[in-house]
């Protein structure tokens, strides 16, 4: 299927990867490059991996730059910058003919690479000649700038922003190293590759954000004025965001002493009237389940962000996985209504966070927003939000002109006005016990039935209220892919490739995952012949939930390797494309060869 690959390579995006070890500054120059390229007006998308050791361990940072929007990290490389031999060796399999390798020939000896363009740079020598071996990364960055026409003034700007606060001698050294790399490349390297970073000025006003920053910004725009969390990778930097910006908006930020405390603080703040949020990752979500149940029963709106990492247990703190969906939807004991959303890209992180607050306020339920490790550090450009256009929902307040008040009044839609401390006449007790309309403990059989129905009934209109959901591809297709979270990007890219070869594949990207948007899923399913759910977990968690709540038969593509699903994982492995361009999903992972679609009826139910 090599011709598909070629088709993909004719795109205008450029993918550059920097690889090395912890402590070498891989991420630093990656981020500088990212910011510079974004600043000159290109769309960017970054992907990085590292382990949770503070020093040492493999580190890589990859940047895709394109005049068009970049859906995913892709599955190829154009340029590899190896800061160490290990960085070269762990990535060399990715180099195909036409790729560029930039490396230090003092430590790395590339062998057996056919058709790869080699640019050796004596990074360490140059760095040491400047009196500091730690500047290797900047030397490499300078060379990259020269070779691919990244404007030096923009890079220098970015370096100044980054280092100015620290000691000025550091800044000077770094600028010097950048320049040395640039000069070396200009003088010693004969350019053999066709790559240039195109210079296109975006006309819109845009921001450059990673997923965690976008969540922070979304929360501020939604009106969040209370934040508490306990540090946990990969959610920690959301806390940093709030520490930086929330006090200036008159809000409170508390670093709690454990995830339970942060959830309890959030509940208290919301009871008192603030829009409040906590963020965590899997192990913290586990600990918060009791608080989530309390908030649901007492009908106190809260927003919980779960930045998923590899599970179960402590798993892999910096690695990617989408395996907390079950825990988010079903983790708290008892019959508990709640809302689970999942963000697919940085833009979603921003706007779904706003939506999470709106839904929490409107329905007075806990809302869990799922993000993931990859998204948390993925940097993308996003158009600057237009503040007046953002729709904000606030909880229905108790009307203090009324004479009597029952906090948990059973209304037609199950939503009862909430009093906020300070409102005279609204005094009520919020309790996690089953209760009557006034909040007294209520143990009658009718009482529990009515209150359970009330709490669940609130969400009856949710699917209609909450529309964000994207569909792409032909109106009728042989195969319909359903995907969620950041895997969407790779699915989108795979669908583009299917379209390029004339294959018949559509896709649906739900953002509301629980309660399941049954109607939309069934409409989609009825427009395709087979539904394939693509997700990065073992159990096929969304597929399982779809089978439980709809009549849809699902097939699954699941990976659980700690890295994001790539377009090729979808486009290349599980589909059978016939000469005429028709496409079939091949359920059996181990099967090979071209099958007729009609034989593909074997159901690959995922356990």
């Amino acid at each position, binding site marked *: 299927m090599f011709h598909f690959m070629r088709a993909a390579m004719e795109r205008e995006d450029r993918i550059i990867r920097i690889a090395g070890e912890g402590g070498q500054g891989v991420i630093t120059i990656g981020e500088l490059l990212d910011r510079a390229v974004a600043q000159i007006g290109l769309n960017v998308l970054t992907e990085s991996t590292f382990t949770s050791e503070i020093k040492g361990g493999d580190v890589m940072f990859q940047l895709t730059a394109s005049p068009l929007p970049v859906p995913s990290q892709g599955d190829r490389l154009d340029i590899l910058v190896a800061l160490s031999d290990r960085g070269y060796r762990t990535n060399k399999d990715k180099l195909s003919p036409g790729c560029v390798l930039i490396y230090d020939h003092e430590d790395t000896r590339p062998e057996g690479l056919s058709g790869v363009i080699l640019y050796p740079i004596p990074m360490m020598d140059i760095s040491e000649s400047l009196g500091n071996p730690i500047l290797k990364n900047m030397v490499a960055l300078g060379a990259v700038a020269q070779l691919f026409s990244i404007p030096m003034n923009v890079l220098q700007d970015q370096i100044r922003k980054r280092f100015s606060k620290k000691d000025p001698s550091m800044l000077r050294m770094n600028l010097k190293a950048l320049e040395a790399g640039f000069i070396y490349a200009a003088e010693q390297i004969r350019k053999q590759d066709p790559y240039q970073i195109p210079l296109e000025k975006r006309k819109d006003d845009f921001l*450059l954000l990673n997923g965690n920053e976008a969540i922070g910004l979304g929360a501020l725009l939604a009106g969040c*004025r209370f934040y508490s969390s306990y540090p946990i990778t990969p959610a920690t930097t959301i806390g940093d965001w709030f520490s930086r910006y929330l*006090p200036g908006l008159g809000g*409170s930020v508390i670093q709690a002493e454990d995830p339970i405390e942060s959830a309890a603080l959030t509940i*208290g703040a919301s009871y008192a009237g*603030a829009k409040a949020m906590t963020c965590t990752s899997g192990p913290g979500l586990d600990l918060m389940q009791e608080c989530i149940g*309390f908030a649901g029963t007492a009908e106190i709106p809260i927003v919980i962000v779960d930045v998923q990492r590899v599970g179960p247990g402590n798993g892999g703190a910096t690695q990617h996985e989408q395996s907390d969906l079950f825990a988010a939807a079903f983790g708290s004991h008892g019959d508990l209504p709640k809302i689970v959303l999942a963000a697919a890209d940085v833009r979603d992180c921003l706007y779904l966070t706003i939506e999470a607050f709106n839904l929490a306020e409107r329905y007075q339920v806990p809302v869990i927003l799922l993000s993931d490790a990859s998204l948390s550090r993925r940097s993308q450009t996003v158009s600057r939000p237009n503040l007046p256009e953002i729709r904000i929902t606030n909880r229905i307040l108790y009307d203090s002109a009324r004479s009597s008040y029952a906090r948990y009044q059973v209304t037609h839609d199950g939503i009862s006005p909430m009093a906020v401390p300070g409102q005279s006449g609204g005094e009520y007790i919020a309790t996690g016990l089953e209760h009557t309309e006034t909040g007294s403990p209520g143990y009658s059989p009718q009482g529990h039935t009515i209150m359970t129905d009330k709490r669940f009934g609130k969400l009856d209109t949710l699917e209609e209220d909450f529309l964000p959901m994207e569909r792409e591809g032909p109106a009728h297709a042989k195969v319909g892919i359903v995907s969620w979270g950041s895997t969407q990007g790779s699915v989108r890219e795979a669908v583009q490739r299917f379209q390029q070869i004339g294959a018949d594949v559509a896709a649906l990207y739900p953002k509301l995952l629980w309660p399941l948007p049954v109607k939309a899923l069934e409409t989609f399913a009825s427009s395709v012949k087979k539904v394939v759910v693509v997700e990065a977990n073992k159990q096929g968690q969304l597929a399982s939930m779809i089978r439980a709540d709809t009549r849809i038969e699902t097939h699954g593509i699941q990976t659980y390797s700690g890295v994001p699903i790539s377009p090729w994982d979808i486009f290349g492995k599980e589909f059978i494309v016939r000469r005429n361009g028709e496409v079939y999903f091949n359920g059996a992972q181990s099967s090979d060869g071209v099958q007729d679609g009609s034989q593909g009826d074997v159901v690959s139910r995922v356990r």
Partner: protein
Amino acid sequence: MTWCPGCGDFGVLEALREAFSRTGLDPAQTVLVTGSGCSSMIGFFVKTYAIHGLHGRALPIAWGVKLANPSLKVIVAGGDGDAFAVGAGHLVHIARRNPDLTYLIMDNGCYGLTRGQASPTARRGGMAEENGAGQPINPLAFLITAGATFVAQGYSEDPQSLILLIQQALNHHGFAAVNILSPCPTFNRPEAAPPYRPEVVNIEATSHPVHDRLEALRLAMTEDDRLRVGVFYRENRDVLNEKPKGAGREDGRDDLTRLGEIMDELKP
């Protein structure tokens, strides 16, 4: 729904009501946060705003309330199990941050609601003893070491002192905790648990140096058959429930302007 006849919690409720009215608290501006347990039912018997039911989490919930709206009067009440078993970690951390909260611990030395098992404060020789109990927690020493800035002890059967102590706690600016011996006659009967019909000594009458942490600890750690009632320790320290210093707003710029500035910072 009510407590057993003779339950100490009745006395605490009465004293609380009286202290509320003497302090002139506005129910609409007051939030009483409790956990889970017999004593935590007290939230159902007051006319203020209240939260009930998450065992051991009353304190962080209350702090959240106070942080979100510092103008509210926020009181925490609940059992020794709530405070010193599930909730011990929160107590340690929140006390040292000294938020402006009043905490009334109704200490009956047992888990009343679950039928009388030993709690961390269960005195040796009481009915409620369990396997591997170890040395009980000394509530006052615990609170003082943790960093509470007002630490007192009361007794449900000594309403006059108790009212005064609650009043002082309510008036204290910072984290004020009153450990109140509030016997559980159903599961931890006086005849079985000696400290529950104690000789009461009011330490206010002595010349206890209330600002001296070590002296307070010494007194707290003095263990005999007598129950010492009064303020053990008191300190003025920065209060941390107010919104962070230097927070915006004062400069007159509105949220939209500020949000715009934040977004400006996010340009590459």
